[in-house]
């Protein structure tokens, strides 16, 4: 898929408020300038009764929300545009919810492709990873969204059709083993191919990310994913303010919205700073190994070289970067 790059941002001689009609610009930018200018102008002129009746803060929120509404796709934003939208999002979080969040736009490190390995001999089904994921990634508490599922299966055969991901009994259960799934960050991701608007793409470090504000909620990607890794927000996601993780990434765990798709992003806000994903750090059994596939000295490379590994539904050729291994 090719996406036309929008027109460059206005240069130093072009200002937002003047001579809109003389400039060549795309429709999105033109609308933004027109309506943004109107809202801003209303503060001074008070020409429009509903807007002038607002408090300064309400007017600011309206303006920020409008600018957010007409912003572009994160992939094609300039650094300045990214900084602007992040400043708007942080301000909105503060005004609307009183939250001091920090949203990163940290890019991929050169020479890094992330890989994950999961030891099905070691996992005991405690679900500590799920708990850590929910807390770390500001997952919708009302809908009880989970990126990770832990399947319980009878020993002997990997049969996900007859696996139970809702077990409530004491674990590990006799004669059973446990296998966790999440987004496998495929090297050839079918979800990216089907997106009609380019709202999801693969980053250079192998993480498939979503621009939640560009997503139109068509859910093609959810149909395309053979691993049921993606989650849809049927309602406005709700996270109690006290539980919000303020360390956020634009492509990661920032506030999502109703009608957008989300999924595991290998804790992009942590892993791009050299930390482990929350699930790997939380696992009490050490069943989760995370690292750089391009570093021959990494733990993940040792697992791939020395352990018997397999990937789920490998015949689909999606090339997941998530391996299962046994002791």
């Amino acid at each position: 898929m090719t996406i036309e790059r929008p027109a460059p941002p206005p240069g130093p001689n072009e200002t937002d408020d003047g001579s809109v009609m003389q400039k060549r610009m795309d429709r999105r930018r033109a609308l933004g300038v027109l309506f943004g200018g109107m809202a801003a102008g209303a503060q001074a002129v008070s020409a429009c009764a509903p807007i002038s009746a607002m408090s300064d803060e309400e007017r600011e929120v309206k303006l920020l929300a409008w600018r957010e509404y007409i912003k572009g796709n994160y992939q094609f934003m300039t650094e300045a545009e990214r900084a602007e939208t992040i400043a708007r999002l942080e301000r909105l979080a503060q005004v609307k919810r009183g939250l001091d969040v920090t949203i990163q736009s940290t890019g991929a490190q050169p020479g890094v492709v992330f890989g994950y390995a999961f030891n099905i001999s070691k996992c005991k089904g405690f679900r500590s990873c799920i708990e850590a994921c929910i807390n770390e990634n500001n997952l919708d508490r009302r809908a009880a969204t989970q990126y990770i599922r832990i399947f319980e299966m009878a020993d002997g055969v990997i049969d996900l059709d007859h696996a139970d991901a809702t077990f409530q009994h004491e674990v590990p259960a006799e004669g059973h083993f446990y296998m966790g799934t999440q987004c496998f960050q495929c090297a050839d991701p079918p979800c990216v191919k089907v997106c009609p608007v380019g709202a999801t793409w693969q980053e250079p470090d192998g993480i498939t990310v979503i621009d939640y504000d560009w997503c139109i909620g068509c859910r093609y990607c959810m149909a395309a994913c053979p691993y049921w890794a993606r989650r849809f927000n049927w309602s406005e996601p709700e996270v109690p303010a006290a539980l919000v993780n303020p360390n956020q990434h634009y492509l990661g765990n920032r506030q999502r919205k109703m009608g957008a798709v989300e999924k595991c992003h290998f804790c992009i806000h942590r892993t791009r700073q050299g930390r482990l994903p929350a699930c790997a750090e939380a696992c009490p059994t050490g069943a989760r190994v995370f690292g750089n596939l391009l570093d021959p000295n990494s733990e993940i490379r040792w697992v791939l070289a020395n352990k018997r590994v397999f990937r789920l539904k490998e015949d689909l050729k999606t090339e997941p970067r998530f391996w299962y291994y046994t002791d």
Partner: protein
Amino acid sequence: MRRRGAATMWRVALLATAVGCGDLRRASVTDTARAIAPAAAMMDTLANATREPGALATVLAAPVQHWSGPGARPFEVTLRTADPTTALSRRFGMITLRTSLRTRAPDLNQYPCTSCHLGNTILADRRAAGAHENIRPVHPAQTGAVCSTCHAPGNVDLLALRSGERETLDHTYRLCAQCHFSQAESWAGGAHGKRLDGWQGRRVLMGCADCHDPHKPALEPRIPFRAPQLERAGGRSP
């Protein structure tokens, strides 16, 4: 075995103190040096013992050295099978990652042992009924081990290896690996146990006893986490 063939490929992180050679005869020469060394290691352990236990932020580097620069031969760690006189030694790779070991002493609530145990005797005035009642000797019962199989009789703050060496409680891997060598191999490679502090830069290795109770090594069963759900407001179901 496939893994032994790949021995030279184990360029993976390994720990600390290291005996330094695959040759057992040379190892026994270093024993004398090691018998003296624990005093220094002990000091570090005791210094760490004043820190607050538990949290990741207080994880401290055990007395380890780092491999400095290319060309210099990094340490090797030799872990032996049960019988040091006949068994083959296994080399678990060279240190190419900066690693350190999680210090255990702050987590032990009856440490140092010498506050009660003096040599082979127990200080009579501090004798307490049920002092070790939290210990469930499942593993000794399974294997026929007694206290002195693992604890050094002369100084219970130290572990006794089969080779006659002494080791601090931080370096439990050397003791456990005498029997559990496949686990030790995986642990050295990064496939068993846990490593903290990120995938990049320094790793903090959790030792055997950080997860496994040495006297009852199997993990306890538990009720799995279940996500709490907010109350649904109104009749609108998504």
